[in-house]
């Protein structure tokens, strides 16, 4: 009976999380077009539905009904496999993020708003993210197109390079909290009014900046979108993809944006923590999604603001600045932790009004 309840919760949780994330991803695309329009002094799509709100639906219909063209000399199996890998890897990380604290549901009783909670959640996220590279690299290789190949090669080298900085940047947080379990990391960030305990400002400012930059590079977004630099490579790795297969890559990119934002929220912005969460647990979900939306807006803002890096600048920046900075952050965090500076701070900041405290 207990097992059955657990399984049922798991399935319901996945369905809800999938629906919410997919809807938000669809509207991120619309938001991106509208915000970019605003930044560039034009309107953006506003014709379908009130204020353009039905635009994602129209886009989806268009993707479905477009002709699906497969290049004649492509490597068929890999060509079909690549978008599947990209989308699957992007969606798989969704299960470990804590969307909210423990809430009381009418029939099921107290339920934690996280689908799967386990010991190595953070490593799982890093592992699945590193599998996502194959989607792009194989797409570039199998299309039998030199621009695609260039895009795929660029994506592979860029993602290997920035994965290092990303992982090293997160070690500070892990040292701080002493666990890889995302739910516990969020619980530890409860502080006065649910704000003062955040890892961001008080303890990991350098780690946060490193993570943010490396995450942008990992998701291939501006200013690190060299794998699909349209001025040099037509459309990069997805040049030969059309219709629904292109839509899958498109989806993977935005889901990746979303999951990277969720990880940043979880590790640095205190996850669901916020004012009055311990009185009204459901507020936590809105705080969490609100913080994620802030990051998504930040992404779009960057896209409207910054030009693209050159490839050698990208590599120099990743290897010569970001990785050393991340190593300095690790040494610094470990030293301060050893000297007990953080304990002093946390006693100073985290008063007993924290969530669950």
């Amino acid at each position, binding site marked *: 009976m207990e097992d059955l309840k657990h399984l049922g919760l798991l399935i319901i949780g996945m369905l809800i999380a999938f629906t919410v994330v997919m809807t938000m991803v669809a509207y991120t695309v619309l938001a991106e077009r509208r915000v970019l329009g605003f930044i560039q002094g034009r309107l953006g799509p506003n014709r379908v539905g009130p204020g353009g709100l039905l635009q994602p639906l129209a886009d989806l219909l268009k993707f479905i009904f477009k002709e699906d063209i497969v290049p004649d000399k492509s*490597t068929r*199996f*890999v060509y079909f*496999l690549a978008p599947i890998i990209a989308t699957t890897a992007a969606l798989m990380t969704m299960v470990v993020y804590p969307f909210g604290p423990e809430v009381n549901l009418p029939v099921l009783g107290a339920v934690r708003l996280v689908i799967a909670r*386990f*010991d*190595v959640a953070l*490593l*799982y996220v*890093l*592992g*699945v*993210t*590193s*599998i996502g*590279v*194959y989607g792009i*690299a*194989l797409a*570039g*290789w199998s299309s039998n197109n030199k621009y695609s*190949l*260039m895009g*795929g*090669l*660029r994506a*592979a*080298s860029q*993602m*290997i390079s920035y*994965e290092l900085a990303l992982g090293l940047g997160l070690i500070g947080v892990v040292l701080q909290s002493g*666990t*890889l379990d995302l739910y516990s990391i969020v619980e530890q960030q409860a502080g006065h009014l649910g704000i003062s305990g955040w890892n961001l400002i008080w303890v990991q400012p350098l780690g946060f900046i490193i993570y943010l930059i490396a995450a942008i590079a990992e998701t291939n977004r501006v200013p690190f979108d060299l794998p699909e630099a349209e001025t040099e490579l037509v459309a990069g790795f997805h040049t030969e993809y059309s219709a629904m297969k292109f839509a899958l890559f498109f989806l993977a990119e935005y889901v990746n944006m979303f999951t990277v934002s969720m990880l940043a929220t979880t590790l640095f912005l205190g996850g669901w923590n916020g004012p009055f969460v311990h009185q009204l647990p459901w507020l936590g979900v809105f705080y969490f999604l609100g913080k994620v939306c802030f990051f998504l807006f930040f992404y779009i803002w960057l896209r409207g603001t910054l030009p693209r890096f050159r*490839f*050698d600048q990208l*590599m120099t920046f990743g*290897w010569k600045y970001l990785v050393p900075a991340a190593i300095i952050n690790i040494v610094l965090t470990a030293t301060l932790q050893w000297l007990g500076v953080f304990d002093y701070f946390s006693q100073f900041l985290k008063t007993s009004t924290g969530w669950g405290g």
Partner: protein
Amino acid sequence: MLALLFILFAGLAIGCAVSMVVQRNPLYSAISLIGVFIALACLYVTLAAPFIAAVQVIVYAGAIMVLVVFVIMLLNVEDEERRPLRLRSLIPIAVMLAAALFAEAVFIIFFVQANPKTPAHTVSDIGMTSSIGGGLFTTYLLPFEITSILLLMAIVGAITLARTGGLLSPRAVVVPGAQVFAREMLDREKYIDDLTPVTTHSTEEAEKLLGLEHKDQSPKT
């Protein structure tokens, strides 16, 4: 339930391993090997070793195999031709080795079934991250450090080989894929044997390295 998962992932691992050996296209072999690694990681999870599983995926499937795929893509390797076996004398040795391996497996299975031992920890916290970390930095500190030094030696060796190999000037920095030249540029006779990507900081520098001259270069003052 666990048995079902074991059969699923073990079957996947064996299938991918066979496919890796049989495939003639190097990239298909690489993809099969990635499949083997992921299936093994899933098996580790069912054996209550989530940390090893995660590390397996991150290190093998996520880092090493990406480099392998990268190199295959960069060299654009064609399908290997099906050649007749040259060393037929090796076949009996291979059969004998396979038989020895099989015998070992059978022996271990019977040995374990004959002498079942209760595990030291009934509650399986042994695969957890904290216990692995604690073990690495206390009981097994010396082997851990020796392994680190071994890896460091490998890195230093690779750098030394790359620097004095004579392919590039000593000042050149080799970064995989940092600068990929178009094939037409590389197909010049004098550079036909040097396809190592080299980091350059400007187009002029790249052209200088390749021995190309700017035709309509505006005079610099």
